[in-house]
């Protein structure tokens, strides 16, 4: 036991003291937060006010173009040619020309601009014009504004029941996000830390230190010590990432919130509405579209301690299961270049489970979801996808027991290959040979 502890300590300290660990630990959250900050910054930054001149010969749209934060409309008179000439002098971004017969030939609307017009702007303007033309055509057909309003109220009252249902769907939206994140983290960590175990073992083998070490430590102890040491490195990195990201996010949002006071207030109001399950009259049917509000509103309905506990269990279980196999590969080959042929059968189930995860997210209670979350090779990722949606306790228990048995089996298998492999130099190993090693006395 003392020796295992010594091995764990070395494996842990060597990795944690590395510059690359420090850099990854600092850079990870910085990149993460930096990326989002940049996205938000650009999104907000691009909202500079654009001035749009409208030459409305039909006179139907005077009250329809409403100024917003991003767009300012000014209506001009005269004919198109003079408007074009004036446009060049004026400090406007675009000129919208609506001809007199716009209702009959809606395609004749033109947008002139010094530079290209963004898709957003184009569709915004088109939407306004389309809606107005639609209204006019409806009234011409005898549908009055009153009827229109009534019909909209009806649509709205439908939305109330949808919204009540929406409480559920918004919760499943949050479950999707959290399940996806957990699955991704497990997927990444199995790969990153599994290959670290493999590299470490190949390094010991190629540097030939392994012979000295196993004259003092049992091969199994050395392997286990390495696996546990690297697992602790992974946990340390996760914890540091979570702490740093939290700190950085709150700092960044404090800075950014100075730039978006209005948006933040709006968002808050919206969130309150969603939480109360009230229909949003202003944007009928739209209130489920804000993912932020959705997640925050629904997080309370999720069982956070269960998710965290399971995440920890499945992270460790999945890592142990696969790192043992990665370790066996590391012991079987002489250098990193030879690992490819043995890596494939190990990486395939990991990649498959990540692909399956996309389907399971859509149908968390289907039979694909059930079986893949029970089988140890896919369960660490798939079960984490399912858990936020709620999974019967017996399924979790079964999956956990099988995962424990699974990693015990892979560790046993790996140890058999490991003890032979680490002393085998200069030989291209085949699968047949690996199988023989397993059954050596």
């Amino acid at each position, binding site marked *: 036991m003392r*020796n295992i502890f*010594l*091995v764990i300590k*070395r494996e842990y300290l*060597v990795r944690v003291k590395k510059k690359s660990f420090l850099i990854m630990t600092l850079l990870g959250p910085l990149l993460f937060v930096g990326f989002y900050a940049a996205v938000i910054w650009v999104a907000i930054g691009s909202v500079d006010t654009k001035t749009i001149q409208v030459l409305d010969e039909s006179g139907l749209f005077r009250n329809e173009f409403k100024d917003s934060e991003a767009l300012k409309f000014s209506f001009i008179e005269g004919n198109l040619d003079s408007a074009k000439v004036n446009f060049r002098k004026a400090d406007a971004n675009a000129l919208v020309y609506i001809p007199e017969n716009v209702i009959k030939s809606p395609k004749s609307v033109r947008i002139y601009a010094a530079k290209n017009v963004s898709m957003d702007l184009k569709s915004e303007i088109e939407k306004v014009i389309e809606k107005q033309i639609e209204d006019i055509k409806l009234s011409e057909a005898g549908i009055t504004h009153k009827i229109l309003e009534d019909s909209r109220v009806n649509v709205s009252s439908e939305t109330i029941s949808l919204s009540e249902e929406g409480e559920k769907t918004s919760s499943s939206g949050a479950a999707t996000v959290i399940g996806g994140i957990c699955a991704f983290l497990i997927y990444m960590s199995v790969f990153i830390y599994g290959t670290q175990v493999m590299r470490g073992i190949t*390094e*010991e083998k190629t*540097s*030939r*230190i*392994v*012979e*000295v*070490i*196993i*004259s*003092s*430590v049992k091969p199994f102890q050395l392997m286990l010590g390495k696996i546990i040491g690297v697992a602790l490195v992974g946990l340390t990195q996760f914890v540091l990432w979570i702490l740093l990201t939290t700190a950085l996010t709150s700092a960044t949002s404090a800075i950014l919130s100075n730039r978006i006071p209005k948006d933040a207030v709006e968002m808050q109001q919206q969130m309150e509405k969603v939480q109360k399950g009230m229909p949003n009259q202003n944007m009928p049917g739209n209130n489920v579209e804000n993912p932020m509000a959705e997640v925050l509103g629904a997080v309370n309905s999720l069982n956070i301690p269960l998710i965290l506990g399971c995440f920890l269990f499945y992270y460790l279980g999945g890592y142990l299961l696969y790192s043992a196999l990665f370790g066996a590969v590391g012991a079987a080959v002489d250098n990193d270049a030879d690992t490819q042929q043995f890596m494939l059968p190990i990486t395939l189930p990991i990649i498959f489970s990540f692909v399956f995860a996309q389907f399971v997210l859509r149908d968390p209670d289907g039979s694909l979801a059930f079986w893949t979350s029970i089988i140890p090779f896919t369960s660490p990722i798939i079960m984490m996808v399912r858990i936020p949606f709620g999974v019967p306790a017996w399924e979790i228990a079964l999956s956990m027991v099988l995962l424990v048995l699974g990693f015990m089996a892979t560790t046993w298998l790996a140890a058999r290959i490991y003890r032979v492999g680490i*002393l085998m*130099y200069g030989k291209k190993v085949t699968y047949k040979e690996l199988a*023989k090693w397993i059954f*050596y*006395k």
Partner: protein
Amino acid sequence: MNIIEVRNVTKEYANHVALDNVSISIPRGKIFGLLGPNGAGKTSLIRIINQITGPDKGEILFDGELLGNKHISRIGYLPEERGLYKKMKVGDQLLYLAQLKGLSQKEAMDKLKSWFVKFDIKTWWDKSVSDLSKGMQQKVQFVSTVLHEPDLIILDEPFSGFDPINANLIRDEILELKQKGCTIIFSTHRMETVEELCDHIALIHKSKKILDGPKREIKEQFKTNTYFVEYKGSLSGLEGLYEISADKEVENDYRRATIHLGENKSPNALLTSLLPNVEIRSFGENIPSMSDIFMRSVNEIPEA
């Protein structure tokens, strides 16, 4: 008393037998040479003594007890393929290896300090192993082998990679360790080292032990009762009395010949018969070198 008793050890691998019913006794406090051509099974035996692998049949006794975990700290092992963690600092690495052998951190630190002074390598403590030259790495590895003051030190080709100065340094260390009562097992092909250092030898060839015992006795056993003489003149007068072979000119007028003494003839009688015939420059018994013994023993076994 023997520190190691190898009893009827057999070790098989998938397609060949590495050791075939080998029994060897290694006496305490001696330098023991384990000889044999490449692939004879030396490394397999060493790995079994180090408990890296186990024998398929037979047993090993350490100090009269069945070899087990508690003996690990009493054995120091320098493998032929040297290896250290490349990126680890020299000091950390030696501390780690010593602790694996059962020393506490403090004990290891104290012992390391005296070795660093002794080898004059104090400045290496914070260096990465990869920054050291090959010879320097060998020194570090040697320190790691003997740091925990083992009773039994197993050295596989200990001098390979050392320049003559450092090789001497290591040789003196080995002799000093022997003085302190350590037993040393040498595995080597270099017969001059065996000649110089070993008290006992065992020769393994094709998985079998073909020879073992004190070096002196083995040499005695391999003596062919032949003498050499360097002379001026002609040996033709002795031809009927002795078996003369390899008679040839060496330099100037001197010739050198090998003379085999028959049963019950003494070297003095040979000298008496030589004196009237030739002028003698030198005369002596042909004592087989370890190299001769090695070659003869190995060649006696036909290639399979």
